[in-house]
């Protein structure tokens, strides 16, 4: 087991090196983030030089990569434009926890993430808990009642949801639970305030931040995100459950005279949940990055929204930090999934 773990950990090192190089190249492919200043008559050549120098953009690409990794406080920067270094650099590099200065938010990238990560986690963790609860129960029910009308409906609905882009589900839910509801209540003379809000995390008019208000704002984004995940995951759980239900030891358990409930939950689900652990581990990194599209639709002030805002005009430090964070999380949780799985299911280790 130890040998397997060490081997697996060592494999991730070249992977992380390639990921960082790819991400760095991509973030800079968008060109100079201050290119738009070239058209601005108020910005002089010297201003542009200083701005680029401040963000380290006058350096060669490999030099910038080194700065990004380990910082530049060990060498001099040229801020008075005499061609020689005079001021020590201020960057510490990602290995010392410095992700640089975000250009579009005008504060450190780490600060932007610290502000937004909690919002994203509120949305994504809620969404994921809802997904798992519904996917597991629907998947098990569909499997034990295979080809029943219930199974057919779950299958049909999942197929349709799975074919829909996430923003379409979001727009549809907004239309039904906010717009139509509002119009209906207005026509009936009721209070349209009971309909679901579609923008942001809190009611902007009220100063106090109540849990109830947050929950109301959560319903639509959570529903649109979970709908697709439930469709995909319940199909997966159904098929692993079916595989287990048709195996020999379930027939043995049944012939021993155990109750159907005991067989389903104790014998079948326990084994069917093994692959589920892998799925959960592989999903976790994607919760951190937030939901780029859903956060945009619902103006949710999270990581995904910050990412979209940093694309145009380009904000390479934020783009790089965001992408590298997601990629490292993916690699890390793949490792966790592999190790957990080989620990739970010893058959894997010997293959």
């Amino acid at each position: 087991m130890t040998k397997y773990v060490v081997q697996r950990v060592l494999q991730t090192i070249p992977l992380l090196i390639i990921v960082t190089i790819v991400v760095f190249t991509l973030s800079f492919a968008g060109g100079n983030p201050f290119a738009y200043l070239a058209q601005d008559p108020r910005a002089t050549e010297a201003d542009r030089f200083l701005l680029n120098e401040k963000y380290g953009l006058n350096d060669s690409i490999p030099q910038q990569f080194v700065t990004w990794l380990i910082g530049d406080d060990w060498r001099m920067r040229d801020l008075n434009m005499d061609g020689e270094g005079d001021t020590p650099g201020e960057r510490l590099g990602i290995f010392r926890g410095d992700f640089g200065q975000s250009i579009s938010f005008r504060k450190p990238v780490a600060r932007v993430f610290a502000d937004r990560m909690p919002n994203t986690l509120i949305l994504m963790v809620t969404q994921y808990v809802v997904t798992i609860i519904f996917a597991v129960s629907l998947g098990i029910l569909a499997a034990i009642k295979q080809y029943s009308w219930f199974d057919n409906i779950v299958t049909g609905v999942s197929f349709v949801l799975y074919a829909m882009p996430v923003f379409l589900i979001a727009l549809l839910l907004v239309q039904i639970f906010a717009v139509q509801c509002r119009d209906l209540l207005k026509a009936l003379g009721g209070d349209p305030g009971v309909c679901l809000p579609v923008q942001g995390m809190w009611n902007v008019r009220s100063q106090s931040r109540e849990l109830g208000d947050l929950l109301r704002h959560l319903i639509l984004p959570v529903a649109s995100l979970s709908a697709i995940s439930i469709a995909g995951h319940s199909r997966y759980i159904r098929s692993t459950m079916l595989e287990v239900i048709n195996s020999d030891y379930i027939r043995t358990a049944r012939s021993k005279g155990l109750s159907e409930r005991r067989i389903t939950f104790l014998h079948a689900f326990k084994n069917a949940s093994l692959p589920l652990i892998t799925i959960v581990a592989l999903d976790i990194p994607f919760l951190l990055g937030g939901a780029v599209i859903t956060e945009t639709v619902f103006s949710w002030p999270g990581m995904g929204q910050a990412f979209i805002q940093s694309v145009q005009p380009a904000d390479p430090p934020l783009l790089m930090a965001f992408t590298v964070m997601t990629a490292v999380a993916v690699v890390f949780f793949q490792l966790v999934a592999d190790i957990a799985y080989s620990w739970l299911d010893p058959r894997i280790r010997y293959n």
Partner: protein
Amino acid sequence: MANATTEPASNVIKLDGRRDKADSLLRITIRRFLRHRMAVAGLIILSFVILYVSVGALIYSESYANKTSLTEKNSPPSFAPVTREDGSINLPNYLGTDRLGRDILSRTIYGGQISLLIGISAVTISITIGTIVGLVSGYFGGLIDAILMRFVEAMLAIPSLILLIVIQPVLIKNSTSTINLFGRQLSITVLAIVVIIGIFSWLGLSRIVRSMVLSLKEQEFVTAARMVGASNSRIIFTHILPNCIAPIVVTATLGVGNAIVTETALGFLGFGVQEPTATWGNVLSGARQFVDEYPWIWMAPGLLITLTVLSINFIGDGLRDALDPRSQR
């Protein structure tokens, strides 16, 4: 080989030495595919979508689809003929208009052509790259394999939508230039979107092909081919590739649906094909600013996208079952 394991009884070699033509892999596949009810339903739905975007183009011209009208901004669907500010009388806006007063119905027709084109061309690129990388990596092994597969793993670690959004400014810089394609003036960004979706969606396929090649190259028919002196490229392309065709076809089919969804997602976020060239994605982008207003802007393209992707998924499932030699349905 795939066709030898299916329905062996009908695969008898006749006395005159010719195999019964009726049982080629293609025919078996078609027969099994047509028995798959959902796949046939998918084929019918997809035909209707294709009919919609092609016959529709005979009724509406592209210049009509791109024609803006200040008096008709965001107007709901109606059956009343429209009088434009220049005095011309136009067909009613059956599906409403967008924020620039353009007719949504005609935009979904021309947008559909482009979205389907993007889906198919992007998949052509990704299937080509994925197959070649998989074949080379699996067949030659060693250092090439290690480098290619580490690269694939690294790329797979970055969520694909994020990758595409980060890379798109590179190719969409000169968004005003146009190209001439099939007699239509299209924004150059159509090409850019095809390329970026194509070059970033071959990763999964290359791993599938590689694992198939790894087992195929150990089999006797490959050893036999090598013994009679066949070159590496001959072994790869005439002996190994035909045996990998099933997963490639299935991945390609499902890939078209994925590429269309990706295009619409990019378009919705405003990073897709630039207007005036319509795609389902950028017609939908009008809904981004007005989430709770003007539902007709997203309803028609949304329905078309869902129907298209749904039917493609059904067809993909049907093909998977039809091409799987183990399933004896």
